């Protein structure tokens, strides 16, 4: 069943014609060409597909694109503004919080979702916020440190 759907991604309104069974992840990558959001497991386990829906982190592989209409969507491409990285991105770079980088966009978006709701997370809260993001390369510690550094940089 083809349908016209309206999505507002990173502040830009898009209209795409797609099948009702397409996930938000598929539409972001295949229709909008925003390749920062990754497909890992496609079933909610790895967090690589994390985007913000209405400011909250969700697995875009478990959201139907038609159900993401009327709500602001933020992907990794929408974080930097005027050529300046988000404090979380800055802190991850400064901390060397990645190796291959596949998990990074999802990790950053999960961290962004946390700081939106809780600007000064404890170490435990930061750890909990990325519990749904798998990383095969690092030891997770640098993400947690990066999140706390970003929280400090913001004040």
């Amino acid at each position, binding site marked *: 069943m083809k349908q016209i759907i309206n999505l507002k991604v990173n502040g830009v309104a898009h209209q795409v014609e797609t099948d009702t069974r397409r996930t938000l992840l598929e539409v972001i990558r295949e229709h909008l060409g925003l390749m920062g959001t990754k497909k890992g497991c496609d079933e909610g386990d790895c967090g690589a597909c994390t985007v913000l829906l209405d400011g909250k982190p969700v697995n875009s592989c*478990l959201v139907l694109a038609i159900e993401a209409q009327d709500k602001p969507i933020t992907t990794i491409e929408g974080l930097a503004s005027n050529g300046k990285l988000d404090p979380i991105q800055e802190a991850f770079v400064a901390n060397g919080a990645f190796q291959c980088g596949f998990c990074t966009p999802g990790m950053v978006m999960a961290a962004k*979702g946390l700081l939106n709701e809780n600007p000064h997370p404890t170490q435990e809260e930061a750890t909990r916020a990325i519990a749904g*993001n798998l990383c095969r390369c690092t030891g997770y510690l640098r993400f947690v440190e990066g999140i706390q550094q970003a929280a400090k940089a913001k004040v």
Partner: protein
Amino acid sequence: MIFIRRLPQFDYVAPRTLWEASSVLAERKSEAVLMAGGTDLLPKMKKREATPRYLVSLKNVPGLAYIKEDKGALKIGPMATIHDVESSPVIAGKYAILRDTSLVFASAQIRNLATVTGNLCNAAPSADMASPLIALGATLSLSGPQGGRTIPLEKFFTGPFTNSLGEGELVAEIQAPQPQPHTGGVYIKHSIRNAMDHAIVGVAVVLTLDGSDVCKDVRIALGACAPTPVRAAEAEKALKGNKLTKAAIDKAAKAAVSAAQPRSDPEYKREMVQVLTARALNQAWQIAR
């Protein structure tokens, strides 16, 4: 080997009221499936374990994501998410056992999508919201083409991944009575990594003291150790009306094992039921004081 593929074809149905949703379900029968957050259903569809012709989504029905207290009872709407439970001021007080449960439930990303009602309706023996809600004495308001009915949550489950919903019936609301004064509630989820894993054993206790150390009332529910979440009636009987002591709790914890009929790892699970029931009772006792 199970392959994850793109979603199969379906017709997307967007009712605007619960009544309309239930009519579509009644009319389309087994061809239609209801969807709330989709975190159980969409992975199943990608694996072709479910291939509904009609996907009836509740996301377009306004006003279903509430959590409130009304006439001395907690009321949870069908679209309230696990994250809503985590951040609700109503829950944080008297129903803190549900907040504690939300904290050990999946990931932040899943909690923003997954609903409490979907967790119950999916009826996994390990469903994390089931045993704490049973321990709170929750009931479900169902509505269907034949009208409405109310059913205790512990009677809702009929087997692994099956429930007692009739054709066209859906869960319209979860309700739980306000706990009495001097009540403590505890949920212990035993799992391999804590986050993101299904419970190996889950134990929920809601215990009320009479003002001293006498157990006025207690409800104990076990998850993942029988085909459905179950109440540990023998253990409750051993405590009710009696003075709480370390020995009384150990005796009750031993009695809780009789409620467990594990489908896998029976010896280990029985042992864990005893250990965790004792631990949960001790913690609930401290909170209730």
